[in-house]
């Protein structure tokens, strides 16, 4: 009996501390999550996006952490389910996410060399004798990543437009990256391949030749969760749109992509051409 009484007294004594701890914990805001799809290694992406996280932390006066998803699907699911506050994603990924989870508040899209769009190239090496897309029939073709917009989806669309399906090719492989595709073509491992614009330019002088250039497609973009407060969304959007106003901001941008010059306004219709591509591909069984 005496023991129970003592225990009660002890708990009564500890109660104020527990209350204070709870209040303190509740008063601390949750960190802002900046999610990035795994198009590079985790470490590389952390290094590229941490300066932006720091910048946003300053603006928002809240902690911002970088999160790299294990794969593209999980990344899409996290955004779709509003489990992250800010997400950086490619155009095809955005279209698929909207198709599945609905629209999200858009913040800004990248502008490369002042243009918020980008192109893809079907490439071959100099002297290959391949001058038209339909000449790819019976040739070996190198794609990048199956989830990659410019090294797979757009090239498949371009070939379909030209009446070529992968079945018409002698062989095709996914080589993982745009650079790998360019090098494989240059090395003669493949007769042709698909690369994004900047890679084409990088290897053009080494003998890479453009077989065809794609239409313009809207660049990568930043989105936020659907349930984000309006002022939070505005603050974020303004912060990103004005990032390139300062030298420090431009450095942050070039840290993410060396050719990025600014972040510009974005709207969902900017990705309609991409929707068309994906729909067409879907009709041909490419998901």
């Amino acid at each position: 009996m005496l023991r129970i009484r003592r225990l009660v007294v002890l708990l009564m004594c500890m109660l104020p501390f527990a209350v204070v701890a709870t209040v303190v914990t509740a008063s601390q805001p949750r960190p802002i999550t900046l999610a990035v799809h795994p198009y590079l290694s985790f470490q590389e992406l952390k290094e590229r996006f941490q300066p932006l996280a720091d910048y946003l932390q300053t603006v928002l006066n809240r902690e911002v952490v970088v999160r790299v998803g294990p794969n593209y699907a999980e990344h899409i699911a996290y955004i779709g389910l509003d489990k992250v506050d800010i997400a950086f994603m490619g155009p095809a990924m955005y279209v698929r996410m909207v198709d599945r989870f609905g629209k999200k508040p858009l913040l800004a899209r990248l502008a490369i060399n002042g243009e918020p769009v980008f192109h893809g190239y079907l490439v071959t090496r100099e002297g290959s004798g391949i001058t038209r897309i339909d000449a790819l029939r019976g040739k070996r073709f190198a794609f990048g990543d199956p989830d990659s917009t410019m090294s797979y989806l757009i090239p498949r669309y371009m070939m379909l437009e030209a009446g070529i399906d992968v079945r018409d090719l002698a062989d095709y492989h996914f080589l993982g990256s745009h650079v790998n595709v360019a090098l494989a073509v240059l090395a003669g491992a493949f007769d042709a391949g698909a690369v994004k614009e900047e890679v084409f330019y990088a290897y053009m002088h080494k003998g890479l030749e453009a077989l065809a250039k794609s239409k313009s497609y809207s660049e990568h973009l930043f989105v936020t969760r659907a349930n984000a407060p309006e002022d939070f969304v505005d603050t974020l959007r303004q912060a990103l749109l004005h990032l390139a106003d300062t030298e420090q901001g431009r450095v942050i941008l070039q840290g993410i992509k060396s050719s990025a010059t600014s972040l510009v306004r974005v709207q969902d219709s900017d990705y309609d051409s991409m929707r068309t591509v994906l729909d067409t591909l879907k009709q041909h069984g490419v998901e």
Partner: protein
Amino acid sequence: MKSRNGINYSARNTWLGLVLIMLILTVSTFAVLQQQEKRLLENAMSNANDDIRFIKLLLTDALQQQNFEHLNALVHSWGQMISYTQELKVTAANGFVLGHFQRDQQAVRPYTLQVSIKYAYNGLATVTFTKDLGAIDASINRLRWQLFPGLLLIGLVFWRMSWLGLQRKYKAQALDQTNRRLRETADQLETTRAYLRNVFDSMPSTLIGVDAKGKVSMWNMGAEKLFGLTPAQVIGKAFSQAIPAYAALMPKLMDAINTGTPTLIERHVSHEVGKPLFSEIMIYPLHAVGTRGAVVRIDDITQRIQIEQMMVQSEKMLTVGGLAAGMAHEINNPLSGILQSTQNILRRVSPDLPENQVVAHELGLDLEAMKGFLARRGVLDFLEGIREAAQRAGRIVSDMLAFSRRSTSEFSQVSINELLDTVVRIASNDYDLKKTYDFKKIKIVKEYDPTLPVVLCDRVEIEQVLLNLIKNATYAMSEADIGKEQFIYLRSTREADSIRIEIEDTGPGMDEKTKRRVFEPFFTTKPIGVGTGLGLSVSYYIISEQHKGTISVDSAPYKGARFTIRLPVAPTSQRDDHTYTDRR
């Protein structure tokens, strides 16, 4: 280069040795360097082959996985990582360079290897790997810089060691030569010294060396024998202290040393050894450079003196002999007269003679009565005594004449038994023997061999020997009168080619020492004035030298003494009378 030791050629040799050593070492070093370079090159090539095999493995993996993007990064990272990679290039089958790493620095010793890697669609990528083996040159250079100073140091050390070794060798040789010469000189000196010492010791004289202060510096065997002192006992002592008996010589010795004048002391008498020692002393001063001193030669002339005395004695004896002969001759005449007269008296008083009867008848004298008267009055006995005495005196004179008659030996055939009898008779009539030693008390036992042949000898001399032996026996037995009957045994025996004569007495005998010296001249056990010590030595001389026989003595204390004489039996042809000149 002239060395202090005069070993000029050794320096030249060592310089030549140095050049040779350096040459050998240089050639060896170059060979080592070349070998090392070859080995390093082989190692580097082997490493390069290993490297390219490893690179090929990596690149094959990348190429087959079509990971072209990372190929260049791989090439760069491995180009950086692999030491001394000058260039690493991966070229696709179409000539496109998939990866290329090249150092800015120019290769010193490029070594290029190429391998092919199969990749997609049977394409062959070529990997060109160039390694700069210039590190070998650096290594060789380092080795060269390490070796050459070492080489120089080794050469110098070797040269220095050789030089020191040569110096030591030549010094050792020089020392050996010097030592050898010193040894030879020392040996020569020792030989000379031994020779001189031998000469010094072999000298029959007593030689004593003294220094300028009169201290004994040399002492020969003669001195050791004469004075019974070893060199260790006398060397360094003053001459007068070393030989006190000769202390009186010290002034003369010093005088001779100081004046440099040889000094002769013809006769010096001392009693150092218990008997008179006569010596002739010659002091020779030494005049050698840096040396002053003298050599004292002491010649023991005792024997010479004694021989001189003996000769004097002999002369006396000869004189006495001559006198005796003269006296005997003079006595013999009246003695003949006495004997003849006595015989005539006896004959003329005898009644048996007819002429006596005629005269007695004429005078009316009865001869028988007169004979009775003479007999009763003992006249005839007196006369007979006179006759016997005269006869005995005649024999004595005859013996004396025979004993001392001449200086030449006469060998004749002599019967030893008769001679022994004669000697006994002489001895029995010898005055000394009769009066002093009572010879008649001694029983003479004769054990003669009746078949003894005659011997060719000098009768007189053998007689002298035998008489001397009997006299000595008589003297010895009378001196040690033990109250019992004394005997002298005279024996004669025939041996194979000699006659043995023994004269044995039952006297006190002799101890060993006396026995050993019994034939020495002037050795006598008789009191001074009684014996000359010449008897037995003369006897020894007569037997051994004159007759080629032997004489020996066998005796022991209280066992008597037996003298044995062996005279050779002369061949028949030599038994004729011979006369030899007396060699004495």
